[in-house]
């Protein structure tokens, strides 16, 4: 009965259980390490662009990679896991506008990576005029 109640409160439970054995998290578009880790993020948006803050404790700044391809932002990194092996993680975000990959600013402080990316000039928010007939 309890198992059944759990399914009501979280209809994705069975799906989550099935997917937990699979290294690619489809819902969050992220590659998990063997320890099940991928960075948590806060995303801020404005007319100018995006600010993404990601928790990357224990990742050396030179082992991190931020890439932009049109409207997809990818955060990648490598860190040493508890058992001493290297774990790779990756997380991508599909955005509703294109980003300017040339002008990314990224800094790491206390295990938090802050990435500032402007919108592509052509992707600035604009109002579309409706023509009258």
């Amino acid at each position, binding site marked *: 009965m309890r198992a059944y109640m759990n399914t009501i409160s979280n209809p994705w439970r069975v799906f989550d259980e099935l997917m937990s054995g699979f290294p690619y998290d489809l819902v969050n578009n992220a590659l998990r390490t063997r320890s099940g880790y991928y960075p948590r993020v*806060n995303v801020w948006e404005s007319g100018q662009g995006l600010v993404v803050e990601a928790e990357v404790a224990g990742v050396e*700044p030179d082992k991190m990679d931020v890439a932009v391809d049109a409207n997809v932002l990818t955060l990648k990194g490598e860190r040493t896991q508890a058992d001493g092996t290297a774990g790779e993680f990756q997380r991508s975000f599909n955005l509703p506008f294109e980003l300017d990959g040339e002008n990314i600013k990224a800094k790491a402080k*206390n*295990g*938090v990576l802050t990435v500032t990316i402007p919108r592509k000039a052509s992707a600035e928010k604009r109002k579309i005029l409706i023509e009258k007939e």
Partner: protein
Amino acid sequence: MNLLRKSEPDVQKVNRLEVTPVARVDEKESAFALTVELPGVSDKDIEITLENRTLSITAENTVGIFKDYELVLTEIPEVRYRAAFDLPERVDTAGIKASNANGLLILTLPKREEVKPRRIAITAG
């Protein structure tokens, strides 16, 4: 405790979610290394106390606020990390050292002299 009478910063403190940080212990020949993940925590927001043989760690993270931007996805809450460890007799509590880099707090817990492995030479008889 009357929350209504508390000043603003105190109320915020009460509201913070309390979580246990991810931690691990590695044993080396002369010391234990206790690693605690504290992303977004500055040195000044970490409090490490030792009472009898209980080592307590309390830390608060700082979440960035960006003016003129709108928060569209929140996965990182403001939290208070709290962890306590009972240290074994083998640890020399006077020699504990702490360092904080890349969001990892590393505590070096040296072993007491008498429990360190040592080589015993055979005296020629």
